[in-house]
């Protein structure tokens, strides 16, 4: 077995899901007995068989990646329950094993995957999806790039043809439920559990948490960073749409046009609303000069 074959064989074994009692499976993905797979390249010693030696790595892999996802999505875990979260994590990682040198990116495809696999969150699927969106936005806002924002004076010089950029760490999230406050409450609960005993309490670990009745209501949220901490801010639909259009490269006049599409805000009050948005965005440092690279790409 050459080095590439060995690495492919071992990686496939290490990344194979564990049994329900956290042991290595008896059968490999290709149907071979795992004992034979292990013995084909691993030597036994006086205490451990080849299977047992390979199993150490198999278990470590799953403990590590499941722990990392749990750390990034504590509210999602609380909403669907620990057991369901583990099941969805295993299925997700089976479909999307890490393709990055850093575990920071492990959950980057989770929301898309969960959207396509509603059975993993059963009756709370819509809410779970929103919670996952918010938690992934947190990860991105936490360490996203930061550019020098435009000042209020600079913002005042803009006209309808101006193209702008948004602060890279600003994440815009469209939700079906007002789930942002729920996520904050669940994160607080998580922190409390961690700090009270130094470790997380295990009682009732498999059950989803009891939640207040949340009615479906379209909600728009921005996750952004201020003084190194991540905050969530509710947005009006029109504000969200305007920001999204700016991010997509629309000139200011078009972005505002898209922002007020189907709006119930009376025409007479829109100019005032836009002034207020820009004042807030400038204060929060959300507005930047356009990303020159993206403009070059566009012109090509």
């Amino acid at each position, binding site marked *: *077995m*050459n*080095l*590439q074959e*060995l*690495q*492919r064989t*071992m*990686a496939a074994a*290490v*990344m194979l899901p564990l049994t329900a009692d956290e042991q290595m499976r008896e059968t490999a993905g290709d149907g071979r007995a795992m004992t034979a797979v292990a013995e*084909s*390249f*691993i*030597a036994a*010693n*006086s*205490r*451990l068989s*080849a299977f*047992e*030696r*390979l199993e*150490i*790595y198999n278990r*470590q*892999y799953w403990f*590590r*990646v499941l722990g*990392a996802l749990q750390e990034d999505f504590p509210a999602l875990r609380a909403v669907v329950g620990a057991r369901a979260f583990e099941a969805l994590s295993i299925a997700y990682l089976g479909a999307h*094993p*890490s*393709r*990055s*040198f*850093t*575990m*920071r990116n492990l959950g980057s495809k989770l929301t898309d995957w969960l959207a396509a696999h509603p059975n993993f969150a059963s009756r709370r699927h819509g809410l779970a999806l929103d919670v996952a969106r918010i938690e992934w936005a947190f990860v991105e806002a*936490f*360490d*996203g*790039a*930061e550019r020098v924002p435009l000042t209020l004076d600079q913002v005042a010089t803009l006209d309808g043809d101006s193209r702008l950029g948004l602060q*890279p*760490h600003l994440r815009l999230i469209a939700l079906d439920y007002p789930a942002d406050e729920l996520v904050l409450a669940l994160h607080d609960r998580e922190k409390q559990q961690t700090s009270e005993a130094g470790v997380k309490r295990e009682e009732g670990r498999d059950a989803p948490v009891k939640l207040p009745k949340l009615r479906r209501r379209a909600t728009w949220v921005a996750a952004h*960073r201020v003084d*190194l*901490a991540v905050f969530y801010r509710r947005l009006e639909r029109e504000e969200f749409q305007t920001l999204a259009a700016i991010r997509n490269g629309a000139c200011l006049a078009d972005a505002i046009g898209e922002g007020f599409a189907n709006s119930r805000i009376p025409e007479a009050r829109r100019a005032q609303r836009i002034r207020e948005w820009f004042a807030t965005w400038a204060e929060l440092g959300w507005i930047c000069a356009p990303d020159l690279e993206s403009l070059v790409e566009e012109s090509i």
Partner: protein
Amino acid sequence: MPGNRFNAFQDHGVGIGLRIPHYQHIFSRKPVVDWFEIISENFMIDAGRPLAMLDRILEQYRVVQHGVSMYFGSVTAPDPEHLRRLKQLVRRTGTPWLSDHLCWGSVDGAYTHDLLPLPYTWEAVERTVERVRMVQDFLEIPVAVENVSSYAAFTGSEMAEWEFLNEVVERADCGILLDVNNIYVSSMNHEFDPMEYVNAVQAHRVAQIHIAGHSKYEKYILDTHDHPVIDPVWELYARAIERCGPMPTLLEWDDHIPTFDEVHAEAKKAEKYLHRHSGELTGAAR
């Protein structure tokens, strides 16, 4: 001269791993620490709190980078984005040398995020040397490779682990981060004499030494970095210092992390060995 060209001739003394639970203590008390080792991947990001905290540390302390995902032994070529971000961080920290593990962990673009052992074969020597040289050339600083703890041995191995290590560092012309705890853990798991390993290592290439604790299970030992250093590991450390000189030494403590003072006190036990060696040298010079 305690340093060598593999650690940029630095006399770093005894350091500890920079860990988040200790930030508050470090910033408020400003303890005297010879140096901090950082896990590069924790800071290979665009911006935000981790980098801001690192910059505060850099204002007052020496920092050396240690990586966990370069996977020198992987057959798949390294991710250019990984290398770009790593070099960016190297420029930020001014790390005099950089270390990562003599292992593999990704194949065909899929990452296990583990430090998987290599078969000790000539093919693996060639592959690993190629990558170490490439990374060293790209980063333009000395690179040291660390021996890993392992739980599996391969039927196809053609040499002992220390022979493999020596072949790689000689051909790649790089340094060694000698982890004496990993030698101990692997010696228990693979039934060899750990002192034979320490005695065989190319001493003049050792850039840095790691010490750490581990966990014993019924049939094997796991490298958990969650306990104090045990006496047999200190004995290996003493022998390594005797052979290599007073090399920069780092205590790793990554799980169930105690207070800063406890970790620092455990690390400073190494000073006894470093000073003993320095005293012997001074005595011999008289």
